């Protein structure tokens, strides 16, 4: 047994594991088990391993780590568990059981431990990526001699990756970006929303401004810390959480919103404990966390459904829109009705629910890169359900899911189905309705003129 220094939060880990009676209910709902029916892929098996390692019967070896990491953290097993075993938390905490030297042996371990922490390094790497990305991924034909296998061990050259944004979101929008007479709202952009899919943050800005809010984008905000936390790099996770707390506290905000399901899940579920472990007083941490809301919940609570219904109609045949529930919203935060109600209220949209809408799409952050083969198979089931729904557009509320579903649709030759963040669709339709409204007004005037 190697000498593992156990962080305090795993002292109760054995007790939490002991709730699992190994009945097997979790296997049936596990998306990974569905495509890899082996005991090491079952949630109960992983819990058994965490238990054995924490008790000292087993070393935290690289194989242990590998087994634990073949998990989407989607939470489907928790929902099916008759004994309320908190698998997701056990997996994240179990990953800290791995000795530092084993963790750092991998590229991912290095990234999680050092890279995310060094904010500037992260930013410059993204800038560099923005410049060189065109040489590396799918856009170069496979037949071309220029296209070479990507040398970084964590990235598969096969996967279509999104293009890094030409101009990062927080480089364009900083500080108070809109002055209004309503709430003072801070926007937590998320890394994906800053570097890659800036469109949903732009949509959120526009929608909040229309509602009359004062919108603040603190430029120094950092990664929420979920990748580090889930990967077992607890120190990094603490440091990032603390930074965010300090930065947002200074802005004197009523509410902090984010359009990233993963960020909002980590900010609301994980932050109080992480911050207190980082030495922040509990009250202070709780006050910060209580101000954070997922954008769907915030808009829903702000009676956005009614407001959308009041907006005039959009011309033409309604768009058929289906919704994919991100794990980080539906299970990790219990947010199910809010996005569905919002979609149904968007002008010019017909909501067509798909089968298994809350089943994980298979990305799960770095899982989708490290285990692309498994991830693809899980994704294919999602794609079948999307196609069967007959939708023209699939919306979701998580940049990871967007990336994954776009990749799946491309592989299955269904690029005609558009994948959007809910907020992007909402903003687009609101603007369309507005234009239609203006056109009608103008039309009326013309008619009046004619009547005269």
């Amino acid at each position, binding site marked *: 047994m190697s000498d593992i220094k156990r962080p305090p939060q795993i002292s109760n880990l054995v007790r939490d594991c002991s709730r699992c009676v190994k009945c097997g209910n979790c296997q049936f709902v596990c998306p990974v088990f569905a495509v890899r029916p082996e005991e090491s892929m079952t949630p109960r098996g992983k819990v058994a391993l965490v238990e054995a390692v924490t008790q000292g019967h087993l070393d935290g*070896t690289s194989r242990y780590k590998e087994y634990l990491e073949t998990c989407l953290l989607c939470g489907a097993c928790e929902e099916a568990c008759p004994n309320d075993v908190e698998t997701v938390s056990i997996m994240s905490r179990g990953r800290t059981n791995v000795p530092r030297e084993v963790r750092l042996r991998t590229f991912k371990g290095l990234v999680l431990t050092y890279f995310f922490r060094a904010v500037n390094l992260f930013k410059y790497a993204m800038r560099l990526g923005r410049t060189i990305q065109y040489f590396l991924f799918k856009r170069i034909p496979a037949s071309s001699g220029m296209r070479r296998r990507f040398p970084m061990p964590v990235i598969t050259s096969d996967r279509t990756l999104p293009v890094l944004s030409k101009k990062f979101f927080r480089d364009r929008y900083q500080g108070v970006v809109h002055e209004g007479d309503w709430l003072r709202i801070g926007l937590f952009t998320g890394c994906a929303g800053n570097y890659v899919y800036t469109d949903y943050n732009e949509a959120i800005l526009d929608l909040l401004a229309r509602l009359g809010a004062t919108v603040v984008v603190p430029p120094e905000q950092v990664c929420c810390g979920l990748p580090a936390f889930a990967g077992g790099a607890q120190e990094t996770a603490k440091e990032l959480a603390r930074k965010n707390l300090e930065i947002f506290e200074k802005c004197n905000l009523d509410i902090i919103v984010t359009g990233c399901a993963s960020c909002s899940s980590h900010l609301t579920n994980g932050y109080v404990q992480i911050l207190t472990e980082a030495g922040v007083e509990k009250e202070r941490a709780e006050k910060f966390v209580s101000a954070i809301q997922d954008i769907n919940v915030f808009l829903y609570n702000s009676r956005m459904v009614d407001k959308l219904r009041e907006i005039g109609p959009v011309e033409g045949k309604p768009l058929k829109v289906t919704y994919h529930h991100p794990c980080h919203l539906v299970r990790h935060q219990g947010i199910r009705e809010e996005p569905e109600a919002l979609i149904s209220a968007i002008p010019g949209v017909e909501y067509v629910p798909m089968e298994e809408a809350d089943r994980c799409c298979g990305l799960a952050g770095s899982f989708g890169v490290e285990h692309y083969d498994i991830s693809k198979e899980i994704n294919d089931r999602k794609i079948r359900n999307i196609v069967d729904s007959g939708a023209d557009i699939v919306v979701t509320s998580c940049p990871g899911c967007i990336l994954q579903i776009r990749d799946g649709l491309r592989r299955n030759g269904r690029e005609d189905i558009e994948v959007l963040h809910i907020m992007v669709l909402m903003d687009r339709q609101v603007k369309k309705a507005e234009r239609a409204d203006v056109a009608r007004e103008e039309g009326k005037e013309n008619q009046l003129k004619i009547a005269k």
Partner: protein
Amino acid sequence: MTPEHTEAARKGPLEKKVRDQVRKIVGKENCSDRREDLFLFAYDGMNRRYLPDMVVHPKDAQQISAIVKLANQEGFTVVPRGAGSGLSGGSLAIDGGLVLTVQNMRRILEIDEESMTAWVEPGVLNVELQEAAEEKGLFFPPDPASMNYSTIGGNAAENAGGPRAVKYGVTGEYVMALEVVLPTGEIIHTGSAAIKSVTGYDLTSLMVGSEGTLGFITKLLVRLLPIPETIRTLLVAFPDLHMASKAVARLMASRVVPSTLEFMDREAVDCVRDYLDMKIPDDTSALLLVEVDGSAAVVDMEADVLERVCREIGARMILRAGTPEERDSMWTARRSISPAIMKIRRMKINEDVSVPRMKIPDLIDGIEGIARKREVKIVNFGHAGDGNVHVNVLVDPDDAGEMERGDEAVKDIFKLVVSLQGSLSGEHGIGISKAPFLGLELTPQSQEVMRRIKRALDPNNIFNPHKSFDFDPASARREIPRSYE
């Protein structure tokens, strides 16, 4: 069993030379002796841990036969394992040795619509067979609670039952023929594809329910039935348990055979009240969930009969499901008991005793007395139609006194069951969990017959030792203690 017979297989950890030979038989990608993997196959649904020396995923009878021959030669034990969801410890490697899984035997080989049979490999999940059969308008009647994750091979080895057993019977009644690797390595075929067959001893029945002690099932021919056209579901509340029991007897005598007849006692009803959409009367002492299946014209008439019988006896509430959603919400009552009782105590000792149907009130009354005497909470529910009751003794593992009182209560319950001409296990099997109590139900003579059969088929006692009548309390020394111990 003679001491030599029990000791024969125990030779300490498997030598490297032997492990290499196993690797050669199945290929190194189909087996592992890595400690991480051993821990994954150390447990089953009984939630105890015994570490095997090696985990092996053979792909057919020939590979298993070669391994078993090696086991006899080298003196190590082999333990067959399905999904590892059994509740009596049947797949635990008590002496270490090899765990042989069905992971690489998951094919449905053939579904014959006309003869309504299917050939399957043992690793096919019950639910997978159900789905495949459904496409042809057929179903596989055995429906254990674990059907979404347990295997057909495991169902047959444990002779699993389920709610539908009251009308359709248990797994054994649907197994027609088997391919089995014997503990000495021979591959035999039992039974026949013909429905009627009395040629020789019924070895199929011997293998079914043998808990993996007499051989490894490598192929099964199972019987399927046409899916009933429709189902009617009733939820009935009685103010008195005896009334409910009388209703069960009357229902069965009214020539209506329910496809399901589940009951919950007062404690169980109180547990699930909060989970339900419907209001259950406060004075409910027993709740029955009754279903009839068949053609639409008949089931409505049958449901009328059931309703009338229940009302005459004094039911306080009778609800009839009109839609699949309503049926679902009624089943929620039954399905939420397990999670609900875990909110009361962190651990339940779940025993699936079985008594003649008419003795259910005596059983429940007796259990109430035991709960008072031992100062523990006991919740009962289960299959009223066939007298198979799930007795759940709720205990807190942190409370040593309560744990001990719980164990005493279980012993009392077993004695009570036997005094009511009942059986220690209706469907979970004996394994190691109930082995110490076997003598309560089986006479020394009948246990001796079982030993002789075992010795005839497994002379070196290498096949899943220490289970059922072969139980040896000393074998528990290899157990890895549970985390709260």
